């Protein structure tokens, strides 16, 4: 089904159109979420939330961008909201644990291995994903969209709502920061 027809069918709440939309974009949404969250169950929960949001707000979609761009944007927003929420929860747990409350501080996820990585790169990619988590939000989003999802700079710019120049800058700084983090890891940690 052509994109415009699919959107029109979604707006009239056709179940078959929603199913087609999910089948078409489920891996894209899940892969983006997983690459940023590093947990299969939570990434799937977020992917579900993304499609529920798409279903509920498709009436607002004006077709000014590609449908995939719009879905990517929702995915990134959901992931960042989830991460901020988790961060707040973690800080709160640390504070309450200081006052003797019985809140267990959540531990960081152990080394994450992306299922799509080539066998010979599994170990290195785990190190890279760990370093990726320490980058600022914008750099992390740009890096994942470009390197994991294979989106070009123009598409990344559309998804993030910034200029191509800004994406170039995020990518440049992301690579610089990752290099520094990896240097520290290989010189000291290893």
């Amino acid at each position, binding site marked *: 089904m052509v994109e415009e027809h699919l959107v029109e069918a979604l707006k009239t709440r056709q179940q078959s159109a929603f*199913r087609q939309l*999910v*089948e078409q974009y*489920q*891996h*894209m949404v*899940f*892969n983006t979420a*997983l*690459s940023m969250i590093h947990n299969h169950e939570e*990434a*799937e929960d977020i*992917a*579900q939330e993304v*499609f*529920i949001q798409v*279903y509920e707000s498709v009436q607002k979609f004006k077709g000014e961008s590609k449908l995939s761009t719009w879905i990517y944007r929702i995915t990134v927003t959901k992931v960042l909201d989830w991460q901020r929420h988790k961060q707040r929860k973690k800080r709160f747990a640390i504070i309450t644990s200081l006052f003797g409350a019985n809140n267990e501080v959540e531990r960081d996820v152990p080394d994450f291995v*992306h*299922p*799509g*990585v*080539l066998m010979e*790169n599994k170990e*290195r*990619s785990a*190190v*890279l994903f760990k370093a990726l988590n320490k980058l600022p939000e914008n750099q992390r989003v740009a890096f994942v969209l470009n*390197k*994991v999802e294979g989106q070009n700079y123009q598409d990344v710019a559309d998804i993030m709502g910034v200029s191509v120049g800004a994406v170039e800058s995020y990518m440049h700084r992301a*690579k610089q920061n*990752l*290099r520094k983090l*990896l*240097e520290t890891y*290989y*010189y000291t940690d290893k």
Partner: protein
Amino acid sequence: MENKDNINSEIDATLNSLDRIGRAEVSPYFYTRLEAKLQQRKLSVFDNFLQQVLNRPAVAVSMLTVFLVLNIIAIRGVSAVSNVSAARSSSPLQNFATEYNMNTASMYNNSGR
């Protein structure tokens, strides 16, 4: 020096470790789970809406008023009907005649001639 070169090449290899990465795929039951969640969400949205609306004092008072007014109208309607039937039942012979069509002068009048 050699160690530094090794580390630099290790860093480059790590930075390039996502080359040719494939997409992670959701489980085959993703759509079924999504549908169930959506259904659950629809129900809870309706419940929440009802709860929120009914919890407002203005809505509760006006709904109670409407309920009372409807009751009063219904009671008045029922008593009016019973008054009419009481009035009718005051002449039982008339009722009997009407019921058995005995008001006509002759049985030939019914033949339409």
